[in-house]
């Protein structure tokens, strides 16, 4: 089975979508109209595990080295 190397998600709703990269609990907010792309590194599993609850999508790491890009810009978690 081919490895899944990236996951692209568009927020077409009217509300912000919150995503968390698990299990490290890094969180990001995807505003309406924004697209988030989660890119996996080399050590990649063939399946992605997700949990959705109340406007919050948790993406469980399927790669040791994942990058999160919002509208093409690489992001780091930042609560401040």
């Amino acid at each position: 089975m081919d490895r899944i190397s990236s996951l692209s998600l568009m927020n077409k709703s009217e509300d912000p979508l919150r995503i968390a990269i698990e299990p490290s609990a890094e969180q990001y907010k995807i505003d309406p109209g924004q697209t988030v792309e989660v890119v996996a590194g080399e050590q990649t599993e063939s399946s992605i595990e997700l949990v959705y609850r109340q406007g919050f999508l948790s993406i469980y790491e399927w790669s040791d080295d994942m990058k999160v890009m919002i509208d093409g810009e690489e992001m780091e978690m930042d609560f401040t």
Partner: protein
Amino acid sequence: MLEAGDFDEGLERERKAALIGGAKTAIRLEKESAAREAAADRRELRRDADAAIAKLRGGQPVAEVAALESRAEALEESETRAALRHAEDDRLFMRGFAQRPPAAQAGLIAAMEKGPELKPVETRRLAAMKAQAAVTERQLAKDPLAYAQRSGVIEEPADLTGLSPEALRARLRQAETAAEQYGLATLPLLRPGEADKIADRLAKGTPEALQAKAEELAELPAEVRQALFDEIAPGLPLDARRVLRQAAGLETEVEGGEDPEPLPQPRALADVPPEQIAQRELQAQQARHSEINAFALNRILHSQPPAEVQADFDRLQEDFFLRTGDLRLSYRLALQDLDEIWGLTGEGPDLRIARRAEAEGEVRSLRALSGIQGGFDLEKVFDAILFLAEISLAGTALGGTAKLGRAFFGAARRGKQAKRAKSVKELPPTTKVAGETAEGVRSDRGKGITNPEIEKARTPSVPEGVKRNQFGANVIDWGSGPEGALNRLEFINTETVAEMKAGGLSKAMAEQWRDFYAGVFARNANNTAARERVRLMEKILENFGD
């Protein structure tokens, strides 16, 4: 030869026999009559139940299921079950069932479960009822108004977009109707997420519009205004809260113009003095025979920070709180500025980079003094210092007199000129960060402050046969963000931990996950979800037993 007496005796016997026969007949007839009456009663009861079912099919589910319930109490169990079975494949029945209060649903389920072994058709019905009861319980807890709408108890919840008094009154009536239907005292006025949306809309409007809206709401009953305010206030900037409270007639002026609103305290620190939190951590560490961490924590407990650093922190924290109305955020921003004010940027913008060197030196000397030999894990010591330092600093700001967790500032005391940090100047005048960042979601700023020098921790193992998402969402159930972990923390006890054990969690695994999140937090101190998960795993371990 027969004698006259014999004849009389014969007559007497016949008379007696006739009397006995008559009595027996009378008894038999009486029994038959009673049986007929009983059967008639039972037929009547059954007719009532059948009529209820018939009406149920006619589209009056709520009243008729209720009627069935009342009759079911009088019917024998087997007949109740027969009546319930009678409704097989009838969607209306399930619709009616869904609208019943949880207690009534449980009663009907209990009626089905009693008696002899269920037939397949009854088993399916019972399974459907149990599934619906679970949905009812879950949905009522999550979004009761939405559930009430779906099950036909109320129409679509009134649209509160414009926050008009009419819509609020309509919503209030709907909440009352649903509460009555489900046997609840009250239901929240707002649906999940609505408070944030309303607060956001109010915050984005002009002060004049906010004032006008608040005055408009003043015509609502006081309890409605108060309930509404309580729900939307956390998402509003401080000044907007004041306007809303005053104009809506919820506030009395306080002498001296002080903020009448109590400071929102972080939940984990709200009820427990910081000394107690730190002491508990210390005891937990000692209980695990981790002399290194205990040693480091003990050092923190008996240290004092320089007054200048504390004064700077207090000033910055107050400043940020006034700007954002968010206590947690104000701590973080104040800590961030403190890094620059005290000139600890020689090795990077992250204060911890400088702290590490300081901590290393102190720990080395302490190790020499204490004579601890071998197995000295400097990383753990440092993490413990950092973790407790933040707790204590927050506690200091809350209480003003905390005497713990300040040692690292001693090393940081450079006597450099205090300067206002860049982040203070750049903080936008709006309060957009409030509310968003309080939830632990990244702001519009790009890069975070992940410390690249701290290696990313390896993900601990999960129980065999359990997927990672199942582990997080079902076994530990740490929820989303810091609030999710804090909420779960309240429910951790020996019973919930026993469930986790049944799910495959071992003590070693729990310790690995605790250490993992301590590492994640050390790598990025803004990841408060990781910090709360450290606490969560600690509590799980405390309740783990042998």
